[in-house]
């Protein structure tokens, strides 16, 4: 049973074994290795590579914070609260599933009944100091309201670092410019969803 795992036919797939000398076990062997390392000047081989590349000015890292890498649409950074495209109202219905599913227990919300007899979120906080950005809250959200955003620069001098509802909510001017971005990660609608839904009969 274990054989198929042990015999991986390394050479067949273009892999090759690096010839690594075994570690010395005897005292004499260890002494020889120390002498080799001291006088063969292997260190300068490495230093030369660095110096060569520096002079070539062909640098592969970016200079953060002046430059920033673009991040993927499924990246899970600080949460956002989305609005409805049709009416600009908040998508969050206050169902409390995000609060329930949160495995690091960092979401807390208060709800109440509003003037129109609807459920309203009166207070909503996420303790980013506790959040592990697992994405469960976005996945469980039935309204695609809470999602992850791309804002990962949330360093804080406090261990507890809260973000509230207002701060997460898409600003109205962004909505006016039609610039709200849909989240494509956990919880987003998968393609061809419509085809899979069975329609409920209607008597209209």
């Amino acid at each position, binding site marked *: 049973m274990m054989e198929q795992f042990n015999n991986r036919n390394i050479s067949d797939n273009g892999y090759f074994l690096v010839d690594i000398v075994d570690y010395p076990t005897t005292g004499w062997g260890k002494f020889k290795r120390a002498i080799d390392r001291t006088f063969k000047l292997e260190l300068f081989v490495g230093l030369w590579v660095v110096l060569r590349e520096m002079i070539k000015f062909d640098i592969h890292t970016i200079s953060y914070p002046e430059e920033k890498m673009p991040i993927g649409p499924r990246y899970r950074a600080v949460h956002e609260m989305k609005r409805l495209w049709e009416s600009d109202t908040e998508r969050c219905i206050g169902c409390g599933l995000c609060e329930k599913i949160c495995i690091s227990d960092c979401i807390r919300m208060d709800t109440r009944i509003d003037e129109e*007899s609807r459920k309203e979120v009166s207070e909503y906080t996420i303790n980013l100091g506790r959040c592990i950005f697992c994405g469960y809250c976005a996945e469980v959200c039935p309204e695609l309201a809470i999602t992850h955003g791309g804002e990962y620069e949330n360093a804080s001098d406090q261990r507890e670092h809260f973000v509230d509802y207002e701060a997460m909510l898409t600003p109205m001017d962004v909505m006016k410019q039609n610039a709200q971005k849909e989240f494509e990660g956990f919880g987003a609608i998968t393609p061809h969803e419509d085809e899979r839904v069975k329609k409920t009969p*209607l008597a209209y």
Partner: protein
Amino acid sequence: MSDIVINIDGQDVKTQEGEFILNAARANNIFIPAICYLTRCSPTLACRICLVEADGKQVYACNAKAKPGMNITTSTEEIEKERRAIMEVYDVNHPLQCGVCDQSGECELQNYTLEMGVDAQSYAVKDVDRSAHDWGHLHYDPGLCIVCERCVTACKDMIGDNSLKTVARGGDALDAEFKESMPKDAYAMWNKLNKSIIGLTNGTDVLDCTSCGECAAVCPVGALVDTQFMYKSNAWELTRVPATCGHCSAGCQISYDVKHTSVANPEDKIYRVMNEWNYVSLCGAGRYGFDYQNTNVSRDEVAFTNALEAFKKADTINFTSTITNEEAYILQKLSDKFGYKLVNEEARSFQTFLKDYSEISGTTLYGSDLKESMNSNFIVSIGTAIKTDNPNARYSLNNSLTVNKGAALYFHPVADPIIDGLSKNILSINHKPLQEEIVLYLILDLFADKSQLPNEIVEYLASFHSMKSITVTETIKEKVVEIVKETKVNEETGEEEVVEVEKSKMVPKQVSKEVEVDDNRLLAMLGIEDGFDDILSKFMKKKDSFSLIVGPDLYNHPNSKNLARLVALVEKYSQFKLVMIPALTNTLGVAMINTLSSEAGTTTIGYNTKGDFILSALGNGDLDMPAINQQEGTLTSINKRVNPTNAALPYGGYTLNDIANALGVEAENTIDYTVELGSNPAFKAVEFDSLDDYYTNRGEEIRGYKLTPLSVEVSSNESVSKIDETLILEDDIIYLANPVRQFTDFTNKTENLDEVSGVYMSEEFLERSDYNEGDTVNIKTANGELSASIVSDNKIAGDIVILPTFDSKLNSEALVNGYRFTKASIQKV
């Protein structure tokens, strides 16, 4: 009912003949789906999902009775189809707002939809406007309602308010094609469902009931919700703390649902009270009066030192019965050690009454409980405003009347429209105050076994009877023969001719005759009208279990000793089983545990009541104490049960046990005394932590333990003193009682029970008199006087003015001398 064996799904099950199949199955942990059925209530037959096959025939498990040897299959292919179709029907037009619904997943519609595997919808009907109603303390959303009528059933069969009914929904009829294509029962159920919705019986859009909220508790979906709780919290966030309600002697099992107050405030807060509504029904005070905790209390060392000083100086502890058994026990220990006089008049009168009762009954405790009353079919209530003294006693009364087809006599001076409205088989007899003795003699006369009853009493009772002749008018039918001329065609000749025909017919005729009848002067003394005998004989048809409920009016009666003896005689010599209503939460416990004095000394400590130094759980004393929802301990209920209760909310201050410790009566925790209660032979020596608190599927109450009634020597003297006919209160009378949902200062403190304190007058009395609601009146009795404003109360009738005791600021108790009724002069200010 005899024991029988039936077979459910191959399992032999013991049950009683005549028990519903559903209950037999549930008692034996066999699952039969059911939505509309409520244990203890009559079957509604709205959901039809409890369909089973009994001996090859489809029946509804909730209303089919078990017969010996019955073979029941809970699920066949046919039944599964019906059930699935029923659940699909329930899902038709049900809003997809589960995310915000207050049921938050504790939803029977969700559960059964999943249970029946409904993954697609086959039916449709046009919806009608089903917008939400605000009914006051309840919020009704017809959109979510599945019209299982559980609320209607609970209100009618348990509570007795009859405030809800089904009303027409309007809208389209079902598509005719469904009748052919759908399973039969599912179609019938849908056809009914599609025509009705829940509405109020009073024709308005605001509930006017005793506001118990039981309808919202039994709602399987989120259609009926307590307005105060709406959209406050999801069910899963709430921690359920099992407890015993601390407001009256019913000792209902409740659970406090607790969560942090808000995002900003992590302190615990009680959001709502839940109950096992299949086995226990709450009143409005229990359900909504949960926030009576003593908040923001810390250990105030100065106050504590003052308290110790006060205890050293005092010779009397004045207290109320709104304490736990353990606290009562600590008070008793302190009294034993330091010789404090324990003063609690309300408990002392009950204690004395029980002692006087035991002299004839030979036992220290009354023989029955409210569960037995509920299962009986003839109830007599004497000396209690049952609706407000103990709401559970009223529920028992109502359940017996409606579900057991029982009958009842309600003897009380204050007319009560709610009690009258329970059933047409209840007769209210509003005798004059102080006539309770006559009532008990009447009960003896009507129901006691005269061959057993002591001769003197039999003779005394006979002295009230005489024969009198009355004229009765009867309608009899008389045969009258008359000769009528008719025109007929002669068959032979074919000509018309006039023939004389003899015709007889029955003609009703009124006849009066003289009849000798028995005249019972006891009835006349109580002001009972003629025709009582007929009503009683109608009431007594097919009755086999009898229950007598007596209340606090008797304990404080000037002749309470005689009343106690009469009550004992009724229990001994008739079929009546006896229940006594203790006036306050733990009156029975205090009466069993404490040695009470009638006279206070010179320096008093008051515990939740007046004193030179006041310990108070209400937060208005010299040293704070925890309220019952902040304490662990036990409470003794009317059902003679010692029920455990837990602390729902934290308490940061000193307790009575801390004082006792400082005074040298040492125990680490108050509940260390639970086991010590066993030193009293009526109690058991059980550790607090090993007290159970649940109901089984069979409906058995496994909560704490029952008190053991002790035998005492029976005195051979069963004499009772005769009726003093001059003992009667007339003219302007006041009565000490509370409005619905109020019991003590603790209920008064709660936010949701916002009853206005004042002088309660019935609507009809206000109409007849020149008083108006809001007027300030001065009430003067032989004992004192007070001024308060008039509150109109439509839950009472008649002329008697009610003074509440829930507001100690009113100090209404100072106006009477023990007995709850007293003469008063009322003057407008």
